[in-house]
């Protein structure tokens, strides 16, 4: 299990400041949901945890180690303890489902082909996908792609899985299947999970704790029950889905 700490993390792209001093601690083994409006910097924060982005200011610590200060070799070592489910699945188009799931094993282990295939089938079975190993991503539905992304993320038995909008674009039933998978993986593999979403039903179902990111800062942290009962104006507006309130609707969206 992995602990994650963000200390005063700032990030900007060109002139747009996305993160304005994020402070957040993720305890080992917990499932934390980061919710917030589209464009509030949730995915950007997630990418800082695994060193895909480097903060302009502040530090991201994983098990007490500053991610931005790691050499490339050590960063790759750290990333092998993580899995990530991307918003658009990010499956490799030119590889079959089984090759997608088994790619990290082929690159980083000495396993025989047959062993890799067996593990791939096992992981695909865990996410409820059988007999799709030979298919290519273009032949799969959105929900199936998401689940293959799950299988790929857990292929190397990670200690922490990051989920970037895991239910976006899915129908309610498939969203619930995905939620159940997140809970199942967290329980069975005893991993730390960080879920970025603005899907409240999903957040309430999977979270041990929910943090709300607004205009680049964490404005609220609490359990799902605390989120439901809080009178925090920003959280209330977001939870109730009201256009009127302290959260301004961006004209560019």
């Amino acid at each position, binding site marked *: 299990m992995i602990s994650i700490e963000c200390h005063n993390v700032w990030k900007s792209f060109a002139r747009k400041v996305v993160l304005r001093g994020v402070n957040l601690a993720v305890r080992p083994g917990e499932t934390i949901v980061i919710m917030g409006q589209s464009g509030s910097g949730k995915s950007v924060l997630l*990418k800082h945890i*695994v060193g*895909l982005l480097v903060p302009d200011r502040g530090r991201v610590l994983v098990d007490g180690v500053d991610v931005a200060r790691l050499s*490339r070799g050590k960063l*790759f*070592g750290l*990333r*092998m303890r*993580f*899995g*990530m489910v*991307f*918003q*658009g699945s*990010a*499956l*490799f*188009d030119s590889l079959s489902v089984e090759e997608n799931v088994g*790619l*990290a094993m082929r*690159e*980083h282990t000495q396993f025989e082909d047959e062993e890799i295939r067996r593990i791939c089938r096992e992981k695909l079975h865990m996410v409820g996908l059988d007999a799709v190993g030979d298919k290519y991503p273009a032949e799969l539905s959105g929900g199936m792609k998401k689940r293959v992304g799950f299988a*790929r993320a857990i292929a*190397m038995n990670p200690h922490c899985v990051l989920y970037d909008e895991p239910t976006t674009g899915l129908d309610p039933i498939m969203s619930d299947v995905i939620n159940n998978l997140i809970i199942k993986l967290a329980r069975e593999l005893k991993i730390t999970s960080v879920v970025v979403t603005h899907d409240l039903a999903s957040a309430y179902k999977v979270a041990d704790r929910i943090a709300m990111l607004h205009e680049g800062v964490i404005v609220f942290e609490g359990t799902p029950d605390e989120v439901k009962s809080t009178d925090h104006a920003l959280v209330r507006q977001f939870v109730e889905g009201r256009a009127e309130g302290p959260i301004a609707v961006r004209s560019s969206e």
Partner: protein
Amino acid sequence: MSTLRNAFQAVGISVLDFFRDVGGSSIMLVRIFARLKELPRTARQTLLQMELVGIGSIPLVIVTSIFIGAVAAVQAAYQFQDYVPMVFLGTVVGKSVILELGPVLTALVVGGRVSASIAAELGTMKVTEQIDAMELLAIDPMRYLVMPRVVACVVMLPVLTIFSDLLAILGGMVVAQASIGVSMATFVEGLRMFFYVDDVISGILKAATFGGIIGLMGCYNGFRTYGGAQGVGKSTMHAVVTSCTCILITNYFLASVLFRVIFYKGD
């Protein structure tokens, strides 16, 4: 006043972009060299890319080469009429094809096809977060994606160029016999008259360099892609333009070094 300022701004941005591209592609080249010792690990990907670059380009090379040779023969015969004996037709066609037309035109046509395809593929991978996903699987995209493509281009361009040289000479010979009235024996006699192995070597060296440019420009522009389908389109176009421009500019410097220094046959 504001029009003038905009014009200066546009020029300034273009100059900055140029230096950013030169710097960025140079850094990428250094990173590729630093990973060459890991080439055996990506042998499968490299062979696959060699097939895509080499075998995939053959139909294009066949058509362009035959007609390049044919046109070279027709143009030379037109210049020769009444002044130069037709025995030199093979010499001129052979020299121009081996030294210049073969390497440069093969690089330009293959470059258009291959650099566009590499930039589009890697650009799509970039905007759909596939490259981030690869990084997250602790797989170095520079080793897994870039190096195989650049190495494949460096290896396959000389092969395609030799193939193109042979076809162009054949095309020139057929046209010489069929429409100019120069027999194949005369054409071959002229071809052999001033044939130097150094010329072939210089053509191969040029082709390998052009191959490196094609692969590098395709990968560099692919990795710089942002902004969805429109971004992929822009990088694809930029890859073709930069690889063709770099090939033509590099061609001059290579010609100067190869023919005035390395293979110089003067005093």
